[in-house]
């Protein structure tokens, strides 16, 4: 790719006491790409994702989003930059005492957008994620899939360039997972949204990711385009896919 990367991490290191959560991680995500990071819990995926919007500040290394170096920013500038790097979560993290419209409008309140404009934008986004008829519903009355769609609408409110997804489908059943992944793929296509996601589910990677990395003990042990990794039985991703297939089909596919 000749355009500058949407997300670039260089030598990002983070320690928690004696534990090295991130060990000099480098990562480039191209604009409009869906990049997936696969790993078990404790591998450092979650910490990595949180360094991208500096919810976790790395001990060393730099983070760039859309050409701007986030690690150089503080205070107000950092908050403005964060607004352009939206995030969705495993447990949705919605305001339970506010209706769908207010939830979607929340990021706009932080930017002091006037009420009428907030509302208009919120309704537009609810429509985009297929929740136009739930504008007045409270999150407690929505299904898991609807809640995640609401969270996605909220994430898009401030027109971000990048979406960070923290195990967004891990609390959902298989069908709902597919529905959410299809929505993310559509937003990626239609809005040119760059998506960086972390997951422990191989299916998430194979279904929507252009490229992927496998993470273990705070570092990437494998990175590449998903089709290539899958085609290679010697890769971790390819090996895991074959083991999964053989388990599901009950026959020896693995090499």
């Amino acid at each position: 790719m000749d355009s500058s990367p949407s997300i670039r991490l260089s030598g990002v290191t983070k320690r928690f006491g004696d534990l090295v959560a991130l060990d000099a991680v480098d990562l480039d995500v191209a604009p409009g790409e869906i990049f997936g990071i696969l790993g078990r819990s404790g591998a450092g995926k979650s910490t990595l994702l949180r360094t991208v919007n500096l919810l976790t500040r790395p001990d060393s290394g730099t983070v760039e989003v859309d050409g701007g170096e986030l690690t150089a920013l503080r205070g107000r500038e950092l908050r403005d930059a964060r607004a352009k790097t939206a995030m969705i979560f495993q447990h949705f993290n919605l305001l339970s005492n506010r209706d769908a419209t207010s939830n979607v409008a929340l990021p706009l309140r932080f930017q002091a957008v006037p009420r009428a404009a907030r509302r208009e934008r919120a309704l537009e986004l609810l429509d985009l994620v297929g929740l136009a008829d739930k504008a007045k519903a409270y999150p407690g009355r929505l299904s898991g899939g609807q809640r995640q769609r609401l969270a996605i609408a909220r994430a898009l409110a401030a027109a971000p360039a990048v979406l960070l997804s923290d195990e967004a489908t891990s609390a959902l059943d298989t069908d709902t997972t597919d529905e959410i992944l299809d929505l993310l793929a559509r937003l990626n296509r239609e809005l040119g949204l760059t998506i960086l996601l972390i997951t422990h589910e191989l299916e998430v990677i194979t279904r929507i990711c252009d490229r992927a990395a496998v993470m273990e003990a705070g570092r990437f042990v494998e990175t590449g385009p998903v089709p290539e990794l899958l085609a290679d039985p010697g890769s971790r991703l390819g090996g895991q896919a074959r083991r999964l297939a053989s388990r599901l089909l009950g026959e020896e596919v693995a090499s």
Partner: protein
Amino acid sequence: MTTDRLVERLVEAFWETLHIVAVAGVWTLLGGLLLGTVLYMTSKTGPRPIAVLNAPLGLIVNIGRSAPFVLLMVAVVPFTRLITGTSIGTEAAIVPLTVASIPFFARLVEGALLEVQPGLIEAARSMGASTPALVWRVVLPEATPGLIRGFTVTLVAVVSYSAMAGIVGGGGLGDLAYRYGYQRFEAEYMIWPLVILVVLVQLFQILGDRCARTLDRR
């Protein structure tokens, strides 16, 4: 004739109690919300940890809560004089009552705010929320039902404390029951204030529960 006097005194005492509880309640609401929010924000795990502020505030709150109200009432007399110009009467009774109930409510506020899911705070941070915006737009609205429940408990405590304010000539239903009912053995002066206090407390509790339930959409 005596019944008329009883009713007259009950009505007067009822308004006194209501006045004491209302004024002390408003100050407690404001003071407790502010103090509790600052305690929550500045704690080690809060959105804006400031140990040098949190530790002394926590200590003050704990001292306020551990001092028996009867002693507190005497201890704050200089402060009461400073504010109301006198240390006896209804207005003077409101001061120690407020001083006692602010720390009490502040801890309940802190507890209600701690109930807000950490994930929600992280989400707000990821949207670029500043700390004041985070507290004002996310933490307080999300904790509203819990805050209302805490305030209801506080208000009921204020009603029962207000009875003790009779010692400084504070008036009110507790004072009436004490002077006529207890000291003069007039049974109806003991029973009626008690009945009214029970009804009042019930009313506060029902109203508080209803408000909290309406606003709680979880």
